[in-house]
């Protein structure tokens, strides 16, 4: 039931979010333009205004949906794998590692593809976090988070250093948007990267994620249920890093989506991953679409980085969840 409702919600969100923006274009004209690009009828808009709909708003809304879904999946999976309700790509250092990889590419002119660099950064950060936590005595929730905080801070410091060293004049402004997370630059290539990552990595994770239920009772219990614990965990963690890297490469590091939304969904539908993962993805998509819509319309014609919005909404939500289920965290 929830699934159907959320799919309808997602489609409705996309449909209405594209009609909102600084330029005054009526909803009917927007939809006619979109239909025109889907091969139905003619666009009633001039070339330029048609561009606003099809080159600016549509790819941005779709990217927001894919990034939101991807971050929510990554968060839910990491929470299960590390048996740690605080785990998410942001808190465990993946986002900051991915940012470092991406910023290095952008500013130092390292010639590898942005998503690959971001993935590399995310993977290195993840491995570092898990190694530190293991070396400190095992992957307990608190150790993992503390290790993640350390790695995250290191990544942020190195990113700041790269920026400090290379940004000239007022070019730091661009980087700032990027660090806070922004979808302003999302075009169709961003849609291809983020939706491609959902299709190639996110959906396989959701299918494989069914085995995550077994992890809830500990590694021994999982092994007793016939799951190859080590291999499953690492496969899923690497896939999560890949997913995070792809998302960060198009949006910068957006916080709280991966942390808060899976919890909220878990409260409503329980923690069976067969249900939890797809619903988290849908909620994440809807949440980020509307956060980004706020980011681009709240101070029209100015824009603000969407990461500010997700944090402003996400932080109090997180506190609320903390107080409601204080026994589990």
């Amino acid at each position: 039931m929830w699934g159907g409702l959320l799919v309808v919600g997602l489609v409705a969100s996309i449909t209405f979010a594209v009609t909102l923006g600084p330029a005054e274009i009526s909803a009917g004209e927007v939809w006619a333009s979109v239909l025109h690009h889907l091969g139905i009828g003619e666009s009633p808009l001039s070339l330029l205004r048609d561009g606003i709909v099809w080159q600016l708003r549509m790819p941005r809304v779709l990217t927001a949906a894919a990034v939101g879904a991807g971050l929510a999946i990554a968060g839910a999976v990491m929470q299960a794998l590390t048996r740690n309700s605080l785990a998410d790509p942001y808190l465990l250092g993946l986002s900051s590692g991915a940012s470092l990889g991406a910023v290095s590419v952008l500013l130092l002119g390292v010639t590898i593809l942005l998503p690959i660099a971001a993935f590399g950064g995310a993977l290195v950060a993840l491995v570092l976090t898990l190694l530190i936590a293991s070396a400190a005595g095992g992957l307990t929730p608190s150790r993992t988070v503390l290790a993640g905080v350390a790695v995250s801070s290191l990544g942020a410091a190195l990113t700041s250093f790269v920026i400090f060293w290379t940004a000239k004049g007022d070019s730091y402004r661009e980087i700032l948007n990027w660090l806070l997370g922004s979808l302003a630059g999302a075009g169709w290539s961003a849609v291809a990267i983020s939706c491609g990552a959902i299709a190639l990595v996110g959906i396989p994770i959701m299918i494989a994620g069914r085995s995550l239920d077994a992890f809830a009772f500990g590694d021994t219990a999982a092994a007793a249920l016939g799951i190859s614990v080590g291999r499953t965990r690492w496969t899923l963690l690497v896939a999560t890093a890949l997913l995070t890297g792809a998302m960060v490469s198009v949006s910068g590091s957006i916080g709280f989506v991966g942390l808060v939304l899976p919890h909220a969904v878990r409260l409503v539908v329980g923690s069976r991953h067969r249900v939890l993962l797809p619903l988290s993805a849908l909620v994440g998509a809807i949440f980020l679409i509307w956060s980004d819509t706020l980011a681009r319309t709240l101070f029209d014609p100015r824009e603000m980085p969407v990461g500010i919005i997700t944090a402003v909404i996400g932080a109090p939500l997180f506190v609320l969840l903390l107080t409601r289920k204080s026994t589990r965290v």
Partner: protein
Amino acid sequence: MSLPTRLLPLAAAAACALALVGCANSPGISPEPAASVAPSAATDYPVSVDNCGFDLNVAAAPERIVTIKSTSTETLLALGLGDRIIGEAFPDGPVPDQWADDAAAIPVISDFAPSQEAVLALEPDFVYGGWESNFTPETAGERAALRDLGIGSYVSPAACKDDAYQPDPLTFDVVFDEITEAGHLFGVDNAAAALVAEQRGDLAGISADTRGLSVLWYSSGTDIPYVGAGIGAPQMMMDAAGLTNIAAEVQDTWTSFSWEAVVDADPDVIVLVDASWNTADSKIAALEANPATANLSAVQDGRYLRIPFAAGEAGVRNVAATASLVEQLSAIGLD
């Protein structure tokens, strides 16, 4: 913070010595614009001004000046005070040809905002900054801390960010007042008066474009464009050139904007700010690469005006920059 304490006696001594020198000498050099004017009447020191809310007291004509950002360097060069600049920092680009020889002799301390120690090491008696943010503990030092070391500091009044001091809107009169005030502080009133007279004449000679063209002042940014807004130096120059700013409604000097609003307005021309780290050509490439902006009529027809980064901030280059905009406009055929 041990450094300032350690340098305090030294700096105080230097300041005392300079005060004596300053009193003994009438303003040293005869600046070029002042050449035609009668020999100068020296400023009566001490001089006090309220500069962005900071009480600035100058006991004697500053002789060892550090400048931060191009606008302050260029103001001093235009006043014929190039030989009093012992170091410049954070230059935004090359100075115009007319001052190139004077500027060549000035050592560049840092390509970025310099640290306090780098500034103090030069033993300046004055620091002239283009932005208030040039005076923080991480950069040249807080103004009060510099004052305690006997070092005066001045921020271009056009760059004051406090509501009570930010010019709203900035006008050429404010820019000229800054030149006059700077001339007074540095003891070259006549040179400043001559420079202002010359600039007023040049400004009056500019005939604004009358076609009612709309314009985007594109300063930087690719994902989120950073543009000239309604109350700053860009707006002042666009007004003087007869251009209508599409971002004029935003009550700020510069602002982050959105591409959607740009495409919606479809400006007739685009002013490209040319900086070494973000060239006009790279902006054209970005505009053409983005499918939404590639269809803008200004992009399609290549209707671009260029302005060097340093000339886009309030200062002695604004009049010439406005003239250049009008000249570039006249080459653009539009009904």
